[in-house]
């Protein structure tokens, strides 16, 4: 018995052979019995180390304890005291480096499956009807939130629960930011995102899509329209390219374009949906972060025969979550590590047909603390590809910083903000990737939450 308690209850998932042909979600989630059994693994220890690992301060032992007692609606209520988007976090948070990393059980086995339990209880609520918590009397204070990604949604939801009148402005036609354009359906179903957004709206938050702040409206104009505080959560939306010859050949995509076409525009359902995408037989995805894994697994599902991850460092340095790498390996993604593309070349028709690469070796650690890759002279080789996806990172979107007076920006185009998210301009907060550069959903949510508290204090200090 004790031995069994050492590992997490597994979560059933689609077989790799099957799932690589469809866009359905990979794991099925716990049923009630499994969830209760997993909840029983929680030691309810006094120190509650897991809570230290949660960027949005969820009372983890409490919500798990309530699952154990089968008090499901109390459990989700407890969870949502701190986290407005649990069905999303339960799916995409890197729990292994956060709450679960600190779990007492992790010392002698596997930690409690906090993420799986969070997902279970959030899905339970979505299936049984979402309840809106009691809201305070309206404060009469108006806040504009720019961007409806994880930072903006969290900030807006928290401010609404504090009684403020919040409007979110979103540039795309669908809210969710990276949750809808970036993260694929098989990892985060868009129906789940829509339902979490619906919850935020039911808290009283207004949502205006098709408004590009910096173009359609500026931050200054939002103040003129009577908003008393503004939160900027515009993310890291600009794609980085390699800067090697041949990157504008046909068949070469930024990961942003590749994923946006597929996820937001539903190119995987073409021609039912009008947006096309082209994927050949041999696809190289350059990079090894989560976005690269998402792109590679998407390419496979779009019909590619061979999908390669091409990465200039070694396995140890790959920035993607272990779970994502594992899923990619299971599905047959091929890893070409210590390999750096130096040139793409095309055929007469303008389409990419090959990628020239150099073999690399690892040298001393660089400023990121990872061992830096050094080219091995004379190791050039070519492999044939007909589609290339560049997934080597994103940089902050400059539209808001460029058009807002009095906003200090950092070296890499980030907006400078203090630990509360307050920027150099009075009344303006920022959080998420626009401040930190590309990071995680949960860190953006944490920043949105912190900013909401600070904005609330500020609004209360106004006459």
């Amino acid at each position, binding site marked *: 018995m004790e031995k069994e308690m050492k590992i997490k209850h597994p979560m059933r998932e689609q077989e790799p052979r099957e799932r690589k042909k469809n866009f359905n979600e990979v794991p099925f989630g716990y049923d009630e019995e499994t969830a209760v059994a997993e909840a029983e693994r929680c030691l309810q220890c006094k120190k509650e180390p897991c809570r230290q690992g949660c960027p949005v301060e969820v009372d983890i032992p409490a919500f798990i304890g309530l699952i154990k007692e089968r008090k499901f609606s109390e459990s989700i209520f407890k969870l949502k005291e701190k986290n407005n988007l649990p069905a999303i976090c339960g799916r995409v948070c890197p729990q292994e480096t956060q709450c679960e990393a600190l779990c007492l059980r992790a010392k002698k086995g596997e930690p409690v499956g906090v993420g799986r339990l969070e997902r279970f209880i959030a899905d339970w609520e979505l299936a049984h009807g979402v309840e809106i918590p009691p809201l305070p009397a309206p404060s009469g204070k108006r806040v504009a939130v720019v961007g409806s990604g994880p930072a903006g949604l969290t900030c807006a939801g928290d401010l609404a629960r504090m009684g403020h009148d919040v409007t979110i402005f979103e540039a795309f036609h669908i809210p969710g930011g990276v949750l809808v354009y970036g993260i694929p359906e098989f990892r985060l179903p868009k129906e789940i995102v829509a339902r979490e957004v619906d919850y935020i709206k039911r808290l009283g938050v207004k949502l205006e899509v098709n408004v590009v702040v910096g173009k359609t409206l500026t931050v200054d104009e939002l103040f003129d329209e009577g908003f008393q505080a503004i939160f900027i959560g515009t993310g890291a939306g600009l794609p980085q390219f390699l800067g090697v010859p041949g990157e504008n050949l046909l068949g070469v995509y930024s990961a942003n374009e590749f994923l946006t076409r597929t996820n937001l*525009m539903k190119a995987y359902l073409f021609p039912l949906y009008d947006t096309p995408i082209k994927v050949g037989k041999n696809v190289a995805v350059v990079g090894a972060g989560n976005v690269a894994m998402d792109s590679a697994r998407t390419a496979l599902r779009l019909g590619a025969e061979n999908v390669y991850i091409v990465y200039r460092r070694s396995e140890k340095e790959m920035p993607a979550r272990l779970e994502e790498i594992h899923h990619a390996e299971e599905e047959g993604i091929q890893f070409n590590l210590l390999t750096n593309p130096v040139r793409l070349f095309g055929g007469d028709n303008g389409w990419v047909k090959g990628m020239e690469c150099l073999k690399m070796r690892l040298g001393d650690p660089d400023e990121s603390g990872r061992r830096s890759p050094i080219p091995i002279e004379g190791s050039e080789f070519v492999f044939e590809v007909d589609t290339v996806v560049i997934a080597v990172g994103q940089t902050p979107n400059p539209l808001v910083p460029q058009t807002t007076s009095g906003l200090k920006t950092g070296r890499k185009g980030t907006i400078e903000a203090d630990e509360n998210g307050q920027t150099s301009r009075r009344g303006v907060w920022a959080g998420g990737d626009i401040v930190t550069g590309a990071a995680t959903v949960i860190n953006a949510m944490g920043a949105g939450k912190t900013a909401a508290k600070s904005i609330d204090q500020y609004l209360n200090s106004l006459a």
Partner: protein
Amino acid sequence: MYRLITKKVLSSVHKLFEVDAPLVARKAKPGQFVILRVDDQGERIPLTIADADPERGTITIIFQEVGLTTQYLGAKESGEYLADFVGPLGKPMELPSPGGRVIAVGGGVGIAPVYPKVKALHNAGLNVISIIGARTREFLILEDEMRAVSAELHICTDDGSYGQHGFVSDILQQFLDDGKPIEEIIAVGPLPMMRVVANQTRPYGVKTLVSLNPIMVDGTGMCGACRVTVGGKTRFTCVDGPVFDAHQVDFDELRARAGMYLDKEKMALENCRCGGAH
């Protein structure tokens, strides 16, 4: 949802809509564009803003029915709605210094994006010589509008059915040859036309601008679908353009990239979804 207020049929393939979009109308400047989606299954396409009326809160768009989305769009009637309409996007055009000779060249549906630029120059007190052309008389659009804002209007058709028989570049050549200095040329039209004009004016060293209309998805710098090589550097048309120095643009690359989805487009047209706009 964005209401289509008026529809005008300009030719068998050219249509005009006035769209109710007050936020866009308030901000729109000549040279900028919008991205629209006809319905919930639709793709996002960019269209140049042909005119804006901030008081009425309307944006005018003009398009040629060339592919799936423009056909769906053309099938809409006034009183109906578009799912999405966002803008104004891209950089506004810069006005040339006054006094010099400015020539505007519009080919085919490219007359639509040329018109707001000529109008802006006209409103700024500049005299513009306009040259417009089309394949045949039926496809010549905005003649009266262009005449109203141009100091001179020259017209040609490929088949000689109206105006001078020949291409806009033939007329432009006369001005390049007349020996009088030209401050700036603005040329918008199909890629082959813009390439011809760029090659034609390059030896004369006359500043020549083109407005590009490549495939786009978001229109805010996020995806890079619209990348174009200008002066050896990769630029994003949506945020760095759409107006660029014609002499620096790599037209071969643009042309290739414009054809990236032609086979898919054909397939979509054949499979034309039911229950949609058609």
